[in-house]
């Protein structure tokens, strides 16, 4: 069985997906998926979460059900381990397709996981996901980097300049 991209899909979305895929995987071999299921059998998330299935996800893309997919929590459930990409005999890569769908959902102003904003704000503030913490020690008390003789964590020297790279990234996703 060969599934081809349906002609009902919004052409701009197809162009965006194709462009993103070209950027990410150097161009898909063809818009074909044999539905062999190697991606799903490799997927660690599929093992534990019923309903998360990369093979079906590609079939839904091929059938043009993009709007439905963009609103589906499933696209944010992928753990990005890349096993599906590694094992796909057609180099279609559900992983890359999922990243593209996430990018589309963000541009469409749809929900993405709330923790993204927390982590991204952390990176915009100091370059890392958080300040160095004081960690509970097995022997009691708390240990800091300084207590272990480790140098401080500085992050980018000029944070304003650093933030310029990803200017307004959070606001853009909220349709502002």
């Amino acid at each position, binding site marked *: 069985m060969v599934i081809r991209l349906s002609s009902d899909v919004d052409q701009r979305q197809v162009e965006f997906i194709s462009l993103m895929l070209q950027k990410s995987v150097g161009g898909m071999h063809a818009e074909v998926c044999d539905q062999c299921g190697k991606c799903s059998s490799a997927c660690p998330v599929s093992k*534990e*979460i019923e309903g998360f299935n990369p093979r079906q996800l590609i079939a839904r893309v091929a059938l043009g059900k993009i709007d439905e997919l963009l609103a589906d929590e499933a696209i*944010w459930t992928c753990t*990005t381990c890349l096993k599906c990409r590694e094992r796909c005999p057609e180099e279609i890569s559900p992983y890359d397709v999922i990243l593209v769908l996430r990018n589309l959902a963000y541009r469409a102003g749809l929900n993405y996981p709330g923790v993204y904003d927390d982590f991204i704000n952390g*990176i915009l503030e100091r370059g*890392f996901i958080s300040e160095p913490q004081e960690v509970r020690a097995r022997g009691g008390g708390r240990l800091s980097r300084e207590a*272990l003789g480790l140098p401080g964590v500085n992050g980018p020297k000029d944070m304003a*300049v650093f933030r310029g*790279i*990803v200017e307004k990234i959070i606001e853009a996703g909220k349709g502002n």
Partner: protein
Amino acid sequence: MTSLEYALFPGCVASVREFGYELAIRNVFKALDIKLRKVEDFSCCQPACLVHSIDYVKGLALTSRNLAVAEETGLPMLTLCSSCYGNLSRAKHLLDHNSDLKDEVNDLLAKAGRTYRGDVKIEHVVTVLHDESMLPILEKKISNPLSKLKAAPFYGCHIFMPAKYSKFDDPEFPHKLDDLIEITGAESLDYNEKTSCCIGCGSFFGEVSEEASVLLSEMIIGSAKEKGADCIVTTCPFCIMQLEIGQIKLREQGKDFGVPVIHYVDLLGLSMGFKPDELGFDLRRINMEPVVSRL
């Protein structure tokens, strides 16, 4: 050929929370006469599960900025994290094979006064130590062979996925971490989940439920324990955090596995005669007795 000096890229997890590994790598590499330069200007590697997921090109620009910073030092980059290695290698591969994308990323980097050229070398602790020039040196430095210890290698997913980008090892039947474990005198075990994903990205950043994440930890740790593992040895601080927290949650459910999860630099350090506290063992969430009692 191994370099005599590297630009150390510890990554977020080892910088802000799991800094026992930064202590271990600094102590172990000093004893191996390999210098690690602290570079002030690095940021988070920017994993594919974060900014890339909402803005692919900006995400790549954040990753590539670190590559540009490393290029300015003229040194190869060294990371101790499977995810950092995978993300940095992936960005390098994509930019080196697509000049339009590279131009687009460089336009963004120009705002931060940087340019990605493409001549940086990215290394992981395992790739450096597995170099043929290093193996005889390691053998000489091992003063305390760990012959009583059985270790289950856990490679971490991003280190070799996809193999097309990173060329780290065979993604289905890897051997480099196993080889390095055997050098310390410990036994490297074969088990089902050796090349599994810890699912850390999905549970920290994504929508993987805690229940699913704990079930996966149980599968990995249970599989290692069944083969008689005294500990799990990884290439990644994020995997360690995930598998330790998973075990704490499992203990709350009455399933106490008690399998310490350590980084390869810890194992090597022990075989070179370092004391557990010189390797940051005091920061571990799981009791290290199964390892320490077999030294």
